[in-house]
């Protein structure tokens, strides 16, 4: 073993990686952790993970190989990185500062075609903070403003296009584009569609019908030899992957009957539907399971905040999973996109409410990767090495990430929270004021 490269703790790994910037280690060995592969190999009470060129090469109880670098993970937990299924990371810096918000447009008729990608800022402070919380990838979605002036004018229910990022903060950190569309039904849809949730469904249906019409008559429509349509050509283009069943449509729906309406719509148009919200999903869990529709839920939100979510409860995730639904757990809505990493606290609460432990781990990683067909989400040969080494049980509120690897590269865990802490705890020249016991 190369003693120079033998790292005794993950923190040291960071030091070394920082010392050799821009050089991707050929091999990295994580030794002796409890490894939750979330794949066929299951959980290894103690196991080694060999990474080569940013991908997992081998996972085994013991790997006897001389790697370029090693991380001692004895007594630690190794899991795939957390993947945020819905976020506005890189599109918002400060919630109430509109100049730093790019995830929603108002006063413009653009809908499904809206693409927030050019606004994405990989230098956002949300990235290092959530990375330190164990998030390695995130889906980034636009939204529609639900408050303030101009809501519902023009009426539209499609928010637009999405993309996926890794949280390494690099300019080339967008890993996939056009992953899914998002639209609103239920109460939000009602607000955006003139006052009835029925009209929100009608608007989705109309958009999909016109998208079909457009596909069959593209040339005539583009040359203006066609009846006037409700949607722009750009919007209709953006909807094509949906009606081809190639791209998921996230529909917000919380009331059980809204979920059924969404399932009906999906059946009619053969959509790849994903239900976002599903507060009352447990009431129609069998139907969701039969339709093979995944759900993205805010698992810690058990509030009857709206009449559409009167049935909200903490064991929603457990009941849905038991019925055979693929469950994805998002960051808690009440803590906003700034704290998407708290999905693991939500998942921990879901376990406390009956969700099997491994399923909870999958709900914040593997299941997300599967729903959106992106990398990460499991520790198995060939998968991208987005991994986290935790001080303890990753779903526990007293555990934290000790090392975060993205594409096999150890990441800095420094962020504004730790910088401000250190500045005020250890006053130094030029900044003498601060902590006094």
């Amino acid at each position, binding site marked *: 073993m190369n003693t120079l490269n033998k790292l005794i703790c993950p923190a040291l790994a960071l030091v070394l990686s920082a010392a050799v910037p821009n050089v991707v280690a050929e091999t990295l060995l994580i030794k002796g952790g409890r490894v939750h592969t979330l794949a066929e190999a299951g959980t290894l009470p103690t196991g080694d993970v060999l990474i080569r060129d940013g991908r997992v090469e081998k996972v085994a109880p013991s790997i006897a190989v001389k790697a370029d670098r090693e991380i001692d993970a004895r007594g630690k937990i190794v899991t795939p990185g957390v993947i945020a299924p819905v976020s506005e990371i890189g599109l918002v*810096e*400060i*919630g*109430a*500062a509109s100049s730093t918000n790019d995830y929603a447009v108002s006063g413009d008729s653009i809908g499904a075609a809206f693409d927030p990608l050019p606004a994405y800022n990989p230098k956002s*402070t*949300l990235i290092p903070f959530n990375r330190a919380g164990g998030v390695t990838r995130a889906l980034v979605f636009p939204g529609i403003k639900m408050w303030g002036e101009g809501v519902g004018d023009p009426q539209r229910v499609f928010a637009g296009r999405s993309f996926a990022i890794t949280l390494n903060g690099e300019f080339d950190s967008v890993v996939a584009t056009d992953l899914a569309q998002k639209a609103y039904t239920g109460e939000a849809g009602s607000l955006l569609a003139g006052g009835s949730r029925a009209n929100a469904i009608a608007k989705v249906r109309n958009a999909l019908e016109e998208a079909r019409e457009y596909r069959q008559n593209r040339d005539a429509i583009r040359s203006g030899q066609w009846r006037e349509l409700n949607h722009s050509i750009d919007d209709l283009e953006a909807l094509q992957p949906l009606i081809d069943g190639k791209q998921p449509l996230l529909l917000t729906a919380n009331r059980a009957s809204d979920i059924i309406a969404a399932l009906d719509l999906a059946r009619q148009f053969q959509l790849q539907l994903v239900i976002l919200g599903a507060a009352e999903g447990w*009431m129609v869990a069998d139907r969701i399971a039969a339709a093979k529709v995944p759900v993205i839920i805010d698992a*810690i*939100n*058990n*509030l*009857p*905040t*709206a*009449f559409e979510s*009167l*049935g*909200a*409860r903490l064991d929603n995730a457990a009941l849905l999973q038991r019925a055979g639904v693929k469950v994805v757990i998002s960051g*808690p809505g*009440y*803590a*906003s996109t*700034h*704290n998407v990493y*708290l999905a693991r*606290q939500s998942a*921990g*609460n879901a*376990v*406390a409410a009956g969700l099997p432990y491994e399923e909870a781990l999958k709900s914040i990683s593997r299941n997300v990767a599967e729903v959106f067909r992106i990398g990460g989400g499991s520790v198995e040969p060939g998968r991208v090495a987005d991994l986290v080494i935790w001080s303890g049980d990753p*779903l*526990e*509120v*007293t*555990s*934290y990430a000790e090392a975060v690897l993205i594409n096999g590269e150890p990441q800095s865990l420094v962020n*504004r*929270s*730790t910088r*401000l*802490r250190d500045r*005020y*705890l250890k006053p130094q020249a030029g900044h003498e004021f*601060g*902590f*006094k*016991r």
Partner: protein
Amino acid sequence: MQHHFRCLAALLGAAILVTACGGDDSGDDKKQAKSFAQLDAFPSTYSIEQSKPVIIRNAIVLTGTGERLDNTDLVLEEGRIAKIGEKLRAPRDALEIDAKGKWVTPGLVDVHSHLGNYPAPAIESSQDGNEMTSPNTAEVWTEHSVWTQDPQFALALAGGVTTLQILPGSANLFGGRSVTLKNVPGRSVQDMKFPGAPYGLKMACGENPKRVYGGKGTAPSTRMGNVAGYRSAWIAASQYKEKWESYWENGGEAPERNLQLETLAGVLNDEILVHNHCYRGEEMAIMMDIAEEFDFEITAFHHAVEAYKVADLLAEQGVCAAMWADWWGFKHEAFDMTEANIAIVDQAGACAMIHSDSAIGIQHLNEEVAKAMTAGQRAGFDITPEYAVTWMTLNPARALGVEEETGSIEKGKMADVVLWSGNPFSVYSKAEKVFIDGELMFDLHDPARQPRSDFELGILNPEGERS
């Protein structure tokens, strides 16, 4: 110990006030008459009585005073914590609970909640938490907005919360009076009012008042406008107070009552506690100077995201800070968050606590404290669970002026007690049993002991409850 709580309210009310506010100890009628707080206008009718004694055996007890007691028994009798010790004898007819492997903490106290005034479902017609019609609405009392059938009270109870302060919202410089409740079902808000708890006055710094009123083209539209607003109001309140004091002293024609000034004068008279929404360090420093200028106390800064920057000032001035574990970024004034905030403030010697401001957060205060404790440990502080538990029990009780009555497991205090399935700082632990004044108000394993508000009956299922 024999008194029922209705009596306690009358007997101890003044005494609690005095402890809380550091005034003199006269509880006589004359003093009562010279009050601005108007405690008798909507008196507490709280009347939970313990139906039978309780003995909890072999628990791990976090006392809320910094101690951890293993293998400990607790006896709850006549609404009070009667005995704490090993191998205690059960009182006659006691409810006996085997708590081996389980943990006990004081009932949790949330110093910042909007249950009842921003109830669920959050439809417009019941959003009664903020009288956003003037920057100074010190005249409103939020108890008049509390919908006691808010189903969220029971959810908070299941999270171990036994006492909570309901505050008006933060759009105004002076938002109005708060009310401190015990988390019990009630037909009226008076049925829930914590006997003898002092009133609070909600104040707000920073972005909210200037945004709301500046946006309407009225003052304040800047932070300096905020400060001018506070000082003008305190000048008026000082004059009002002097007028009444002169009248009490010299007689003559009684001055005209003014609801707004009455509440502010109540603060100046050390009867009403100031709970000040304030994120930024420099604003906290300015608010403390204003308090100095007009000779009143600020009890606690709430949402004090930057409290760690002025922790030593808070310690010097004896001002508490109520904080979140990790919320940030929703406003510019919430941008400088550090997860070590609570720990730093605490270790600097100031009175630190968690608060929720959220109907979800209030259900998981133990998890929020666990995160703050962990952040403190990572910052290099030696913070144990028995210590950190004070951040959700005794310290918020202190900020509410009820620390003589609740917030710790000590002989003679109200028997507000939570039995946890395990270490309360684990995400997997649950409040199994919650006692308020010795009465079992929540039992995880007994649906009959899980309160349901009227709202929840026949919802989703006509023959059942909400979910």
